[in-house]
């Protein structure tokens, strides 16, 4: 059940190139949030911001005395009015916060995960700020994180935020940049396709987050190869908890005329790529 609360800013870290990491004291949410879920955040003064903004929780961290998760970290990029205002927040300032919201990633059916060698290969695909969704997933995966591969694309090196962190926590990181400033030049879908084609028989699960065009390309790659794929979608949200009906995306196979749309905030944001039109 989502908590509706105000939370204090603990830290605001400027990561350069418009990327920030904002840490909020929110023990209730930190304990319950699952990778791929999100929160809605707003200024406490509604006159300054009518519509809250959705953000994945990138990380959770324990309180000063260690132990249970007590803080959540939001990794965000300054885009427009809301994120500009957020980027000015200082430690001690308070924010309105609603979460955890939505359906996060789900792991392969445990029944399939029989013996050691047979484990499903987890491939994470991030485009730009889409990487924000994956630290929490790697945290949740525990030891298994070391056996994941992250395909990480961006316009240039500056867009590969937290790259060091990912290199330390994921099994392997494969990068691609449009300007060639890090890793392969071009889109991240190229090394992903190469990887999928290198060992086509392998049981895999692809989890992707990033710009819509990237998600579409990743989903096509996977669907064409029969590889299960989960995509984290974005759509404009007013509420985040299912009532404004603003955040819909189209279903691939609606059961009826009425059933044409699903809500990203409630039925998603993570969808099986087969469920929706990308």
């Amino acid at each position, binding site marked *: 059940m989502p908590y509706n609360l105000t939370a204090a800013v603990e830290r605001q870290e400027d990561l350069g190139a418009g990327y920030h990491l904002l840490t909020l004291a929110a023990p209730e949410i930190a304990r319950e949030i699952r990778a791929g879920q999100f929160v809605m955040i707003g200024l406490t003064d509604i006159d300054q*911001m*009518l519509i809250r903004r959705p953000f994945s929780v990138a990380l959770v961290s324990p309180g000063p005395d260690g132990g249970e998760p007590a803080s959540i970290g939001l990794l965000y990029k300054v885009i427009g009015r809301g994120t500009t205002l957020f980027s000015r927040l200082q430690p001690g300032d308070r924010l309105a916060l*609603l979460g955890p919201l939505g359906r996060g990633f789900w792991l392969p059916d445990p029944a399939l995960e029989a013996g050691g060698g047979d484990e499903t290969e987890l491939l994470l695909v991030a485009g730009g700020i889409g990487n924000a969704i994956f630290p929490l997933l790697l945290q949740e995966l525990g030891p298994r994180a070391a056996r994941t591969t992250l395909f990480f694309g961006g316009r240039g090196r500056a867009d590969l935020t937290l790259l060091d962190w990912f290199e330390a926590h994921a099994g392997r990181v494969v990068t691609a940049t449009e300007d060639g400033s890090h890793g392969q030049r071009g889109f991240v879908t190229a090394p992903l396709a190469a990887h999928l084609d290198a060992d086509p028989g392998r049981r895999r699960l692809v989890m992707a987050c990033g710009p819509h065009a990237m998600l579409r390309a990743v989903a096509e790659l996977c669907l064409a190869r029969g590889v299960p794929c989960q995509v984290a979608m974005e759509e404009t949200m007013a*509420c985040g908890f299912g*009532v404004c009906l603003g955040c819909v995306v189209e279903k691939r196979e*609606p059961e009826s*005329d*009425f059933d044409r749309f699903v809500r990203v905030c409630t039925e998603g944001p993570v969808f099986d790529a087969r469920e929706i039109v990308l």
Partner: protein
Amino acid sequence: MSAGVKLEVAVGGGLTLRNPVLTASGTFGYGLEFEPYLDLNRLGGVVVKGISPRPRAGNPPPRLVETPSGMLNAIGLQNVGVDRFLEEKLPALRERGVATVVNVYGQCEEDLLHVVEKLAPESGVAAVELNLSCPNVKEGGLELGRSPRAIESITRDARAITRQPLWVKLTPNVSSIAETALAAEAGGADAVSLINTLVGMVIDVERRRPVLHRGSGGLSGPAIRPVAIAMVHQVYRAVKIPIVGMGGIVNARDVVEFLLAGARAVQVGTANFNDPGVAMRIVGDLAAWCAAHGIADVNELVGAVKGNQA
């Protein structure tokens, strides 16, 4: 609740609400979605999402865009349809004892009356609120709710098929809202509710397309509050039936402003998206405001604005 302040308001057709704060149609789902955040029974009432004869899928996305101090929506009246509403939603609301106002939408007059008819025998319907935003085919396709004549006739038709309290929701996109309110009153409405959204559009200048898939949408939020206050006040001076006011309410001060302008009750809309607990907090703050201002009965505020009235 601040002890001693009387908050009950009579909103016509024999309906008394426990306080003047309802939630607006399309901004509160079917009410039940808000149970994690507030106690529905603390509200004056809940107006559910517009119900149509058949389920509606609504418009393709994007359906929303933020605007200065407001938002535009073009949801397209996505809803479960009257049958599923009666089966799944109404019983749960009835059980909770919350005053449930059912907002009714149809693509034509027959549709609309069909829903009114289906609701008529049901218990647990505190009032029926007619949303007249469907096109008025007889008069050139403009919204039904822009024609006083059409309003009067459909209100009369609805009145004839239901004994439930009947509210007519008025659009602000008219030359004279006093006239449309008078038409609703003449047709037998027990109350008028206003304002619905203003027509608006935002264009994405990079893509050279409207941001909303549908093109235009409905503007709501604090940006429209001054328009809503002026219209409530105009209607208050024109009609005798109670007024349910809305448009941009975000706190108890705003509620007081609507009451002073002439509203007997109010609806909180867009603000529910910002904070799902806001409506209940407003009820508490309103009682506290009355207590702090020596107001024993919230009805004292209704229409109590003084001074120039232009």
